[in-house]
């Protein structure tokens, strides 16, 4: 059970973002910019960063949601499974391998990012902005994972929920739906 009263029909992060909307606003806008804004990384690649960090933090809600979003954007489900097991053998390019290694280091501690892992990313063609965004996305998901689990939000009752959520993350992104979320009430 959540540690604070949250709306029953809104599992995971959504209930929290609706609980306090003034703090939700900059979090939503930052996420929209980082994961959907102009970037030389594809939306699918940026969702892989969200996925590997949430997986490292063992946050079930965020891992499932961002895995589903990445799968939809990539059009296949193998890459998300592969990066969780072993980045080096995953079917991604050298630059993404290097960036995911940095993301995993950030997940543990900012201090764990080594000069060598940054050099590897730069040698593989990563720009300063790509390295910046990788670190900030990884840091942002350390916020999300702790917010979602620290208040003990509930998981959805059905796996269908994640399908619908991923669809929403792909088509609408991370900004609040203009009509709110009352349509998710099952009555």
């Amino acid at each position, binding site marked *: 059970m959540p540690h604070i009263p949250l709306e029953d029909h809104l599992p995971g992060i959504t209930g929290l973002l609706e609980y306090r909307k003034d703090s939700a606003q900059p979090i939503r806008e930052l996420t929209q910019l980082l994961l959907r804004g102009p970037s030389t990384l594809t939306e699918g690649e940026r969702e892989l960063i969200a996925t590997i960090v949430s997986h490292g933090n063992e946050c079930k809600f965020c891992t499932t949601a961002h895995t589903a979003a990445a799968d939809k954007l990539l059009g296949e489900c193998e890459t998300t499974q592969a990066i969780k097991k072993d980045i080096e053998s995953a079917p991604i390019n050298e630059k993404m391998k290097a960036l995911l290694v940095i993301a995993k280091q950030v997940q543990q501690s900012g201090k764990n990012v080594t000069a060598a892992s940054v050099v590897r990313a730069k040698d593989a063609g990563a720009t300063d902005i790509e390295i910046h965004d990788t670190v900030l996305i990884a840091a942002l998901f350390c916020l999300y994972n702790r917010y979602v689990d*620290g208040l003990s939000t509930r998981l959805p009752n059905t796996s269908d929920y994640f399908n619908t959520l991923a669809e929403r993350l792909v088509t609408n992104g991370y900004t609040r739906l203009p009509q709110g979320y009352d349509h998710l009430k099952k009555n």
Partner: protein
Amino acid sequence: MAHIKVEEGVPGIRSLVLFRPETGKHLYELAQVLLRDASPLTAAERELIATHVSARNHCIFCMSSHAAAARELFEEKREVVDCVIENKDTALLSDKMKALLTIAGKVQQSGKLVTDEDIAEARKHGAEDRDIHDTVLIAAAFSMFNRYVDGLASLTPTDPKEYEPMGKRLATLGYVLPQQQKTNGTH
């Protein structure tokens, strides 16, 4: 040296938000909402949570700048800040704040560590839903800020004196996005 090309001589997060003001804008808005806007916790108490989490993450820049802000805001009770950093018991800390700092310390490690008992202890000493929510979200947000600042190896001044003007500025002006200009930037 920072992992990416930021303006020389500008410390910590200020150098990063000058590098990418688009994301910086939302980060500063989030800090302002969480640490200064309406909350049942005082600005001083919220800076103390930020200080505690940053100290536990060994993020010297964030710890020193938020400790400096907290000292300004606590005024004559400023010694509470160093007690929290050094993990020393102090009568200056209410039982409610002790319980909330315990929750924040767990969120710093993992959201999953927060137990029903931790929440019950905080409630026993008068914490309400919003105290608990804000504590968890501030702790989660500093898990992000600390990783951002250290993950990109931003400049960390080592002289404690350098943080005093930052603390004064944060206490009086709050979180104002630094402007793109050549200055001897202070936080």
